[in-house]
């Protein structure tokens, strides 16, 4: 499906931050902002909700902890009990390092995989780039030109808020 966008190009991150605030304040919906590096506070002004990834991470970690404890207690305590250093078969202090490592392992891998999945970053995925300069030194605000959104008005709004140029672009991959 092809979409049309108005792209406001900005040179400065602070100008961008205030422009985003004002554009949203004027009732225009912003599709996405493309920047060469992460900008502090941009998720707040864009009104992006906080990610729920930490909650998922907690449960991945919990899974890892349970798995690690099961693995050690089952193998060392029941499946093949061995006497090591005269300690009990289920010697919890000795299990803590492994439990810690597996908690971290499960947590990290779960988080990375989840992040890739929800961001649609999988092999052969082509990322559509609206303006290549957003990977270099420009900040790009994309506003989708749906029905009822007037290009002239959007252009004026972006220009008034410090955009150095405003372009129109069609993209078929979105």
């Amino acid at each position, binding site marked *: 499906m092809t979409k049309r966008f108005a792209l406001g190009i900005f040179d*400065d991150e*602070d*100008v961008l931050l*205030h422009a985003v605030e004002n554009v949203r304040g004027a009732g225009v919906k912003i599709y996405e902002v493309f920047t060469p590096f992460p900008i*502090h*506070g941009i998720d707040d002004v864009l009104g992006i909700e*906080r990610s729920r990834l*930490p909650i998922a991470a*907690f449960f991945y970690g919990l899974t890892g902890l349970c798995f690690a404890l099961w693995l050690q207690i089952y193998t060392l305590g029941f499946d093949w009990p061995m006497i090591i*250093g*005269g*300690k009990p078969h289920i010697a919890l*202090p*000795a299990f*803590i*390092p492994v439990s810690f490592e597996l908690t971290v392992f499960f947590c990290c891998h779960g988080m990375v995989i989840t992040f890739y999945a929800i961001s649609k970053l999988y092999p052969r995925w082509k990322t559509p780039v609206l303006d290549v300069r957003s990977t270099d030194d420009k900040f790009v605000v994309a506003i989708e030109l749906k029905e009822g959104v007037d290009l002239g008005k959007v252009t004026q709004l972006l220009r008034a808020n*410090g955009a150095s140029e405003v372009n129109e672009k069609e993209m078929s991959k979105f």
Partner: protein
Amino acid sequence: MATLTHHDAVTAEYLEVSSGTRKTFIWIIIAGVLVLAAGLLIAAFNIGGHHEAAGAAHGAAAAHGGAAEHHGSPIWLKRLIMSLWHSNVFFLGVSVVGTVFLAIQSVAYAGWSVLLRRIMEALGAFVLPGGILLFLIFGLGLINHDIFHWTMPGIMDPKSANFDEIIYGKSGFLNIPFYLIRTAVYVGIWAFFTHKLRQLSLEEDLNGGTEYFHRHINISALFLVLFAVTSSMSAWDWIMSVDVHWFSTMFGWYVFASWWVSGIAAITLCTILLKQAGYLRWVQASHLHDLGKFMFGFSIFWTYVWFSQFMLIWYANLPEESIYFNQRLGGFGGQYTWLFFFNLVINFVFPFLVLMTRDAKRQMIMMKIVSIAILVGHWSDFYLMLMPSTMQENNGYLIEIGVALVFLGAFLILMTKRLSQAPLVPVNHPFLDESLHHTT
């Protein structure tokens, strides 16, 4: 940068310690004295009377050291001296961590913490009084050798009945003159740098410019190097040497970690209380968030060091090492068992679970609860380091809590006094603006 929002200019804001606040501090001290008096009465008249077997158990515990049997002060006095030593070492550590944290902020060129620098400086107000008290309490402990077993007369004399060969082997390090010199050096270094860094900061307030900023960094760097050595050595001297037969190479770090996280909790608690009293209006949730990360992270760090010490001793199971945990886990009729596990719960599980989410670190009430829990928890951590080896089964809590309250009141009076002597924000610090716009 033209459109950057500028906060209204920071003006010098002074803390006014109201008479009500001062009364609260006095009341804390009075409450402490009352609890202490009650504790002393109960201990002196042996109310509840469960210490009949004291002599027998004492002999058993001394088995590891040979002729360690000695009759020190009466139990109430010994407990009083020990609890003075315990609370003094704890509060002295919290106090010096204020300066250490400040020095680290300087050396790291940290901008976010500029608004909180005065609080760190004020925490250092107890370093010198605490250091002097340390000598006095050491002297008190010397009368009947209540704190340090190695100060017993004849213990290093092969002809004496008190002779202990293991302690004799340590006499090059553990002798009273050298001990006092070392303690003087630690306290001297800490007090000097606390004073020097405070002085530079005050001069910066008056004169401005970046010269003080650079000098602060140089002096802080020197202090950090010296503190790395002195903190570890003071931990051996002041705490580990009460267990004179025992040793642990992790101990310096362990004590440092405990002091360090309590110091950060103290900075946090102070920030929150000032904010709730209407001061520090530029301090935002973001600053609190960073302090919360420190408390969270260093609670885990403390646990890591604690476990590193425990794990190796548990695994190797050498009698000379494992006696430390034997005494604390099940020794003396299980006196200390609950405290041993309470220590792990309040200092690790509680901060870990409560401060895990971002929102909790940004909420004053959560941070307040956790910082109080950490301070209480690490005070009892020091209790657990000192009491089992000295008081053995004759420990108690009332005297110790009373003494801690007296120290707390005195600490707060000294700290708020220093806090009120200068603007609450270092108005001429070059990174002030960064701290005002801090977002996380």
